[in-house]
């Protein structure tokens, strides 16, 4: 496939996706579960890809994602609550100390930047650690950040342990798709650049990478800061999706959910993370909800064990089974691409049926 043809295909697919989403929004009632899944799935896809950049492409096992999302979400919320609503939101702190509101896109980027700055600072000591130790340190950071943001003394800025609300949110499902899409595209560009190649070299063999002249500390910090930036942006998006936020939301359980998505999708595959993000959100928010129903009957048989929260057990079992039997995840380190599908169909069905498949697609 030629390069221009590939680009046209990709642009066409993205346009088709956005048009389908737009039409769905006009047709289906806005309360439909599908939109919940699509919105939250798009946001989680971004944070999962950002985690994959670190864990899958640079080989740094970090578990600080929830902490960076918290930083992004709070920065976004604090900077965008309209001045008029501040008195009611910060009712225990005399309206807080910030009296301006920034436009949404700037606040989202600011959220990413704050997360990136924190990543830079904690990266200085923490990135000297390897594997499990790095995971423990970053997990600790996320927990500390969460506690600090609930601290009463910081109330005039963070509203203590109370909810932040009244900030601008999105209604259309297109919004998170477009923002996440742009961010993921940027990450993909980075991965395919010489920097991305250096990240992968560090993942494969640190000593050899260093001998080739790759500055380990610099590149690890770069990957950590960029990953945290996008985690911060996705935190901002999550705040918009939830409409209210509170530090206690960003528990380590959230990091594990993201890790689950990355592992299921395939460590080292961007498209894998995206696909498994939507799958995971669909299961946890929608398809597996019935497991939480205590009074489920099949015919006259009362299904035992079911109670609220039981669906989480399924995820625990899935992750164990994945690690034991299917470690490469859905995509492994491969990527879903138009070219890949084209080659697949060509191999499978020969030239003629490819043409047919192409025709039906165009209709």
């Amino acid at each position, binding site marked *: 496939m030629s390069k221009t043809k590939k680009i046209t295909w990709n642009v066409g697919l993205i346009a088709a996706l956005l048009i389908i989403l737009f039409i769905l929004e006009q047709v289906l009632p806005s309360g439909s579960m599908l939109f919940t899944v699509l919105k939250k799935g798009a946001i989680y896809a971004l944070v999962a890809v950002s985690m994959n950049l670190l864990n899958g492409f640079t080989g740094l096992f970090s578990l600080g994602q929830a902490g960076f999302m918290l930083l992004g979400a709070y920065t976004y919320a604090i900077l965008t609550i309209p001045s008029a609503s501040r008195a009611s939101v910060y009712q225990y702190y005399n309206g807080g100390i910030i009296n301006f509101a920034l436009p949404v896109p700037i606040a989202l980027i600011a959220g990413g930047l704050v997360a990136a700055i924190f990543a830079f600072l904690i990266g200085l000591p923490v990135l000297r650690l390897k594997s499990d130790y790095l995971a423990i340190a970053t997990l600790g950071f996320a927990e500390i950040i969460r506690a600090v943001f609930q601290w009463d003394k910081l109330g005039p800025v963070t509203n203590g342990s109370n909810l932040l609300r009244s900030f601008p949110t999105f209604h259309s499902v297109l919004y998170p798709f477009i923002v996440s899409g742009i961010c993921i595209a940027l990450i993909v560009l980075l991965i395919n650049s010489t920097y991305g190649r250096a990240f*992968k070299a560090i993942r494969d063999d640190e000593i050899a990478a260093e*001998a080739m002249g790759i500055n380990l500390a610099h590149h690890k910090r770069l990957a950590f800061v960029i990953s945290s930036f996008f985690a911060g942006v996705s935190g901002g998006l999550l705040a918009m999706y939830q409409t209210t936020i509170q530090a206690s939301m960003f528990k380590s359980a959230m990091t594990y959910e993201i890790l689950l998505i990355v592992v299921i999708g395939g460590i080292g595959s961007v498209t894998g993370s995206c696909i498994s993000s939507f799958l995971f959100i669909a299961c946890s928010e929608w398809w597996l909800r019935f497991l939480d129903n205590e009074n489920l009957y099949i015919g006259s048989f009362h299904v035992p064990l079911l109670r609220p929260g039981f669906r989480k057990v399924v995820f625990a079992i899935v992750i164990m089974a994945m690690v034991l039997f299917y470690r490469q995840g859905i995509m492994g380190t491969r990527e879903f691409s138009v070219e890949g599908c084209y080659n697949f169909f060509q191999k499978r069905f020969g030239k003629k049926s490819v043409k047919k498949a192409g025709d039906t697609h165009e209709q």
Partner: protein
Amino acid sequence: MSSILEIKDLNVSYGGIKAVKDISFHVEEGEIVTLIGANGAGKSSTLRSIVGLEKPESGSILFNEKEIASLPTDRIVVEGITLVPEGRRVFSDLTVLENLKIGAYMRKDALDEDIKWVYDLFPRLKERSWQLAGTLSGGEQQMLAIGRALMSRPKLIMMDEPSLGLAPIIVQGVFDIIREINKQGVTILLVEQNANMALKAAHRAYVMETGRITLSGTGKELAENEEIKAAYLGKSKEANV
């Protein structure tokens, strides 16, 4: 000929244990020089400290009359020294071509010519350009490790045990390549336990024992030295008398 690399009174230690004690040697431009010696003699530590992976405790390392002992590895690679690390260490989840490109990471100019050069030296790599490096055989991985190092256009290439774990016939091929690269103008500093092959290929050689250089001479001289024969070439003194 002038000294491209000059080491003076180099000391390297790991947490109080001295691995390299006051060694001095030099490498002339266009030469193949080899350091031979048993396990733990300090050969690898010497190479690692030259390329900046290990900080020397004291001593000076002059490369083209410039002191490089305090420079970080990335600066040293730009200066023109590259290490082919022990045990090949190719990037197994990257393709052969990507491995080669990583080798040229510190360079900003066009790579096409160098990739062609490496592919001419190693036609097998060209055939396997899109294969993941981890799927290559041991010999091919060693070729890739050497090719990757050549991509940085080094003036001096240092190889740490290039024959390690390879079948004898492949080892022969590796040494042929080393001579070929040298003919094309790259100076080579070689660390080997396979003293026989190394001494045959080298212009000059140094023998290291427990952190010190105990003998030096041309490759031929050392290959005929009775003590070397007994210690490293597996021939007893009596048998040769």
